[in-house]
């Protein structure tokens, strides 16, 4: 999909891509997704945007195997990378941290079932804490952390299992604007250091143009692919004031505006 990436520090370890073949789904009489065909190439971040209730979260649950589509199929192509403990790994909007476990305990939760041995487990936890800048908070409980810190913990937990594909459902929408900027920077840094594959659902078009290699625009319910916008500019060179990105954002907004307005009216009537 995109030009070959330069500046990678390692040989590519992600050998897995995802393919969605005409995925459709309905809840009872409500048709939610219609004929979605998509490829999530390895090593790229695919953003999914669309109006409220168009089925973005549903699509993500299907990609992650938490729900079955009525028709169509979701395929893994290739094998997950070596050392991958959980190929499809979520980052949730509301963080989903266990309040009774410390930061390191929450990260260890994802590893414990794999019986890696104490030292290996501790090394992985220390490693991801270091990568996400959380080393000083290892012992803290979630209630002691700010929202941004909590989401960093959730991201660290996802990185700990070395996923083939990360599935993020509006990961920053519970955060304030400044924290969101900081976390976007963090994600860009993480990706630049070690690229990962991700499906990133968001409402926020600025996030989409900042983080997405490809941006999938869904129509209002039933969600169908309206357009896939590709942005080839390397992530680390993007910034909020870039006019080219601003133009992309404007283009996306044009695509979405009417859909969003119609979806809004629809919800009000429902």
């Amino acid at each position: 999909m995109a030009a070959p990436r330069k500046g990678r520090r390692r040989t590519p370890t992600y050998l897995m891509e995802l393919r969605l073949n005409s995925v459709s789904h309905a809840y009872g009489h409500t048709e939610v997704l219609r004929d979605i065909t998509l490829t999530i190439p390895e090593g790229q971040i695919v953003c999914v945007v669309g109006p409220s209730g168009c089925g973005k979260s549903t699509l993500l649950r299907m990609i992650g195997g938490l729900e079955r589509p009525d028709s169509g199929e979701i395929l893994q192509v290739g094998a997950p990378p070596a050392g991958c403990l959980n190929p499809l790994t979520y980052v949730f909007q509301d963080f989903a941290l266990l309040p009774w476990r410390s930061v390191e305990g929450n990260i260890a939760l994802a590893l414990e079932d794999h019986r890696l041995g104490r030292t290996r487990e501790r090394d992985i936890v220390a490693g991801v804490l270091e990568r996400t800048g959380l080393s000083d908070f290892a012992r803290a409980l979630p209630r002691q952390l700010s929202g941004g810190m909590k989401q960093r913990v959730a991201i660290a937990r996802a990185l700990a299992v070395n996923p083939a594909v990360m599935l993020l459902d509006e990961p920053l929408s519970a955060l304030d604007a400044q924290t969101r900027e900081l976390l976007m920077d963090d994600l860009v840094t993480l990706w630049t250091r070690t690229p990962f594959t991700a499906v990133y659902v968001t409402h926020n078009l600025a996030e989409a143009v900042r983080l997405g290699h490809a941006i999938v625009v869904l129509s209002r319910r039933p969600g169908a692919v309206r357009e896939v916008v590709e942005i080839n500019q390397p992530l680390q060179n993007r910034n909020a004031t870039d006019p080219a990105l601003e133009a992309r954002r404007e283009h996306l907004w044009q695509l979405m505006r009417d859909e969003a307005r119609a979806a809004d009216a629809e919800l009000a009537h429902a």
Partner: protein
Amino acid sequence: MPEPGPDIRPVPFRGGGFAPRSVRMVGAFVFVALIAIAEIGTRQGWISALTLPRPSDVLATFGELWDSGLLFKHLQPSLTRLAVGAALGASIGISVGVLIGLFSYIRAGLVPLVAALFPIPKIALLPLFVIWFGIDEGSKYALIAFGTFTPTVVATYGAVDNVDRTLVRMGQSFGLSWWSIVRKIVIPGAMPGILSGLRVSLAIAIILLVAAEMLGAEYGIGAYILEAGSLYDLERLFAGVVILSLLGVVVSAAISQAEKRLLRWRS
């Protein structure tokens, strides 16, 4: 005369309250005050000694109990019955409650049954338990266990229902095994509800302990109270009642400790 200026005053405060704090010594003060009133009243005669024993006499009776070694003789079997019965009832109750919380068929099958069992005064079933488990300790254990079981089940499955489902989905999304999800997510998440249920269940266990002992036991606090009551020996009766109250306070304090320890993550 100064010109009447605009009316200036602080904004009235409307917040506060609805947040109980722990206030030390007030509980003890209430106890002491009540006992002091009873003592003074019985000494001065405006409370007749027939209606209420003098607290100092009760204390003296308590001292006799202690000196003669009878206290331990009565307390030891009672505590054993309470511990065995309540442990059985609570552990089975928690397990069944978790199962009801997790499996639709078990829920459909057992919730009506539990609802049917709950309002039965368990004492009424003592004869049945005597037939099933023998006249000795067995029937007492069973009665206490059964009495603890029903409230524990109800509290537990309610608590399991209230566990945040997104945490469970999170566990599944990381590929945790079913047993790991139950052990590391469901049970800790239900723990606040389970513990507050235990508070009620254990109080019921103490009530049932006394009832069981009144219906047939040589030693035990219930037997002691029954004997005192049939002789209208109010001092001894009250000494027994005080022991029960203390038992209740100790159990409740133990649960508070457990909450403090297990639920440190909450506050």
